[in-house]
């Protein structure tokens, strides 16, 4: 049985009718849909076990704490982290990257260099701009090659004695390019720099192992991997995380407090001030269990097939330009495209009239859009529940869209 045949009954939203047509949801890279298992786990938590975590000495408080910390264990196993202390819950990828940038900004000196990639999402650009502004550090960007890969020669050239941070995406949310993260992390370490990886588009689709990737930080969002919104994970290598000062304070992150000073809590709670998103953590546990049951290798294979099919189908349509590495290369589950003579937003609006949901615009990657010479693109992206028939529907609609306006 194909993966989508197995999974579709688990996703209630896929029964939606949009503009008179069955929903064809091709926007999972922006946010994935949620299986019944995730929704039910969160409802069950609120109906049976909700209380605040960590300092409640009553049954519900203990249950909530247990469930919240169980999520941490699940994440640790899922991404192959060595220690549970390396798993910090955040509000999302943006929040995780900001946490690292804020904490590292204190160490940066004028003239220090932060190396990012031209293909970064704004979430992995702006936090570094703020860190540079506050410290006098300088941002350097590694360009893409003609095929849409990270220019590794340019990367090696830009690394130097002033490089302090290398912040790069694992999988491009526009090009689908999969960057060689462990090589990037090794090169960064050799240069004496800390490596920070945006894994938002990788974790829903690839089998991850932090002990192999070997980066210092890795940030992801739950909502892109079948989990709830409002929750993310920041992995931080123990040795590096241990040395970071918190930049956000409040309850939970302290051991002792006086009026003028405090002693920080242990890892990972040191970086989790305030009441955390508990129900969301419960939902994430269910999402991870769902993905593990399917098997990440099978997930990757399914999405690879859909991406390949889309690249072939869209690439064969007259006046449609497809971006990113050619189908012969390993890619993430996104296909960005442009219909000649039509604005990406108009393409998305026209597809929506047939119930087909795609993303359109700059995809929060304006420097990349400039490098590609476009205002924006339309983008189809895939998850475990998408079918080959849906890719065919997209291709057929795009054949017609050109004469529709």
């Amino acid at each position, binding site marked *: 049985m194909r993966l989508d045949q197995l999974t579709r009954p688990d996703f209630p939203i896929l029964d939606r009718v949009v*503009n008179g047509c069955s929903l064809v949801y091709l926007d999972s890279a922006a946010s994935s849909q949620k299986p019944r298992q995730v929704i039910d786990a969160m409802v069950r938590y609120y109906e049976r076990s909700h209380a605040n975590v960590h300092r409640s000495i009553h049954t519900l408080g203990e249950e909530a704490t247990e469930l919240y910390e169980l999520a941490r264990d699940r994440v640790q196993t899922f991404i192959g982290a060595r220690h549970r202390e390396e798993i910090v819950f955040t509000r999302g990828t943006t929040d995780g990257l900001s946490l690292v940038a804020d904490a590292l900004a204190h160490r940066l000196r004028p003239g220090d260099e932060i190396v990012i990639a031209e293909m970064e999402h704004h979430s992995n650009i702006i936090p570094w701009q703020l860190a540079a502004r506050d410290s006098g550090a300088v941002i350097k960007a590694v360009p893409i090659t003609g095929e849409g890969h990270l220019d590794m020669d340019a990367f090696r050239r830009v690394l130097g004695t002033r490089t302090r941070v290398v912040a790069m995406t694992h999988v491009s949310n526009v090009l689908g390019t999969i960057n060689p993260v462990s090589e990037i992390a090794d090169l960064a370490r050799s240069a004496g720099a800390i490596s920070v990886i945006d894994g938002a588009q990788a974790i829903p689709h690839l089998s991850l192992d932090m002990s192999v990737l070997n980066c210092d930080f890795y940030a992801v969002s739950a909502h892109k991997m079948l989990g709830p919104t409002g929750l993310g994970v920041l992995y931080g290598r123990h040795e590096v995380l241990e040395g970071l000062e918190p930049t956000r304070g409040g309850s939970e992150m302290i051991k002792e407090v006086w009026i003028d000073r405090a002693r920080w809590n242990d890892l990972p709670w040191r970086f989790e001030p305030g009441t955390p998103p508990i129900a969301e953590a419960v939902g994430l546990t269910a999402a991870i269990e769902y993905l593990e049951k399917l098997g990440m290798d099978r997930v990757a294979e399914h999405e690879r097939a859909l991406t390949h099919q889309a690249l072939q189908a869209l690439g064969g349509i007259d006046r449609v330009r497809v971006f990113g590495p050619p189908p012969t290369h390993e890619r993430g589950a996104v296909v960005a495209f442009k219909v000649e003579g039509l*604005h*990406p*937003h*108009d393409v998305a*609006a*026209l*597809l929506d*009239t*047939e119930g087909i949901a795609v993303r*359109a*615009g*700059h995809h929060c990657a*304006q420097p990349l*859009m400039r490098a590609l010479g476009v*205002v*924006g693109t339309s983008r189809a992206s895939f998850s475990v529940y998408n079918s080959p028939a849906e890719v065919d529907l997209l291709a057929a*609609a795009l054949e*017609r*869209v050109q004469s*529709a*306006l």
Partner: protein
Amino acid sequence: VTPPAALYSDVIRERWRRPRFRGELPDATGVAEDVNPLCGDRVRVSVRMDDGTVAEARFVGDACAICLASADVTVELARGRSTAEAAAVDAADVLAVLQADIRPARMRCVTLPVSVLGMALGSAR
């Protein structure tokens, strides 16, 4: 794909296909440009003021059909008006001409050219 008449009205399609006031204005006395942060759309409006009146106005843009149609209508509504009258052109005036049922998510596509016109008038000598 049949575009719903409500979203892409005949006026929007006509103005997008054959804009009446698209182009540069070499002797402009006021120019402004802005982007829609949601989608990166970019519109520039140029005006030539003559004795307190918008003697000529033009736009250029890299934007969606709704935004470009709005720009064409916005500029048309400003031409021949006094500065105060032109500055008073608002989204409701443009929507009345476009005759389209613009959803909230796309309303910025309509309002961007209107605000850029205001900036161009403000910058005009």
